[in-house]
């Protein structure tokens, strides 16, 4: 399989690899995918409670090069955005940016799911007055 230069670049230099304290109320964690499917992404965001801006993001991914690149890119894109802005990120944007072939579209879907799951987790911890948790929540089961 031929990879795009951008996928290779993210694979060789993944951004924002790591872990944040999942118990912190400022941190939202999304763990999506399953080992038997060949992809698991964990994406974490650290949100400023005042501004709701995502100040930091970290990821770890088990998966193919396209899955690693999609999650690496996702951390880059969410940083500096408010949680509501981050929810606007679509998997198709990731497909376009990384020039993913059709068989790898599920990697971008998983990255979008990871963003939503992380934000959902953060919202659950910080039930904002009057604002129901509306995003689909994939629970970080660990």
């Amino acid at each position, binding site marked *: 399989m031929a990879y795009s230069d951008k996928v290779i670049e993210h*694979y060789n230099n993944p951004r924002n690899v790591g872990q944040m304290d999942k118990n912190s109320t400022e941190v939202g964690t999304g763990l999506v995918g399953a080992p038997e499917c060949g992809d698991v992404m964990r994406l974490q965001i650290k949100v400023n409670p005042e501004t709701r801006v995502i100040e930091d993001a970290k990821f770890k991914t088990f998966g193919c090069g396209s899955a690693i690149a999609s999650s690496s890119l996702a951390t880059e894109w969410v940083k500096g955005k408010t949680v509501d802005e981050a929810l606007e990120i679509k998997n198709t944007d990731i497909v376009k940016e990384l020039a993913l072939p059709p068989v790898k579209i599920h990697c971008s879907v998983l990255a979008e799911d990871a963003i939503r799951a992380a934000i959902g987790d953060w919202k659950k911890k910080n039930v904002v007055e009057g604002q129901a948790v509306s995003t689909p929540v994939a629970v970080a089961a660990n």
Partner: protein
Amino acid sequence: MSTVLSEPKLPAGVKLPIYMDNHATTPLDPRVLEAMLPFFTNKFGNAASRNHSFGWEAEKAVDLAREQIAKLIGATAKEIIFTSGATESNNLAIKGIGEMYRERGNHIITQVTEHKAVLDTCKRMEKLGYRVTYLPVNADGLIEMEDLKRAIDDKTILVTIMFANNEIGVIQPVAEIGKLCHEKGILFHTDAVQAVGKIPVDVNAMNIDVLSLSGHKIYGPKGVGALYVRRRNPRVQIASQLDGGGHERGMRSGTLNVPGIVGLGAACEIARLEMDEEATKLKAMRDRLKEKLESNLDFIHVNGSMEHHLPGNLNMSFIHVEGESLLMGINDIAVSSGSACTSATLEPSYVLKALGLGDDVAHSSIRFGLGRFNTQAEVDYVADKVIDVVQKLRELSPLYEMAKEGIDLTKVQWQAH
């Protein structure tokens, strides 16, 4: 500031890319090429032309090749039928026997880790009204003789079990299977593509009635293979699947691929003379690779019995690392992976799954296929590179981190998509 002045220096004896996928195909041995070359140019005759020297010359070369192939597997020259490769050989064996022995019975026995050329042919036979039993394998990848005994009934006409597996290198108990089949009067076919030329094969000692082999797995050319068909005790009959000029004792019509056949013969001759020495060398290199990986990495799993194993094969799972991402990191080394991501179907290797391995272990597997032209320096390079990339990817792997923290990954509720 851009260009790097010096590329990292490679150790002596290492030239990139390194080919270590010799179960998929092998490079042509230069000695084989040399034997073939005249038959592309001035020795172009049709081996079936009986009335001039061009034909005689070609026929003589084909006869020599028949001898060379027969000698490698303990057969006689007349028992060798040329085909376009092992897929055709397997099709011809199973369909040809099924058709010829239909009145005697309609039951065929095979096993689950066969090559698709056997499995899909068997599925076709089912559509044609045959019954097929697919024996399971144990965690080592071996069939249980008791299962085979139980599967045989009075309608069984054929047992087709591979000699050695192309993914995990596991060698089936062929001699035992052959003995049982002969006692029961059932024909025994074996797809021996990965075994011939690599380990000793003797059709008489092992009671093999029909055997498939291929040129390009043994440093010969692509597009040529053979089917051994026993002529006595018992005399096996095969209904031809290609109609035409009645070549190859009527079993396989079509003008013979003389250069290819000459190459296949030469490849068998070299294999016969050098097999013992080569197997010893390959096994030593394979064991060195295995030991290096095992002593530097945790969470690894060797797939398939190492006791009954081809000398050049190592199939290993690097748990918590996905196979395709590993291949991407070692892209100057040609190996293959059982990961779903390397296939269009998104299904991980059915062979590894048949061993009872979870999909996650199958996704993490790499097949190393060492061959005649690999060197120890290459093995060391490959080991170092794999260790390096596995470690790097594990830094990225949430599963590795969780496993290290002692979390039981089977108890986690995953969000499958």
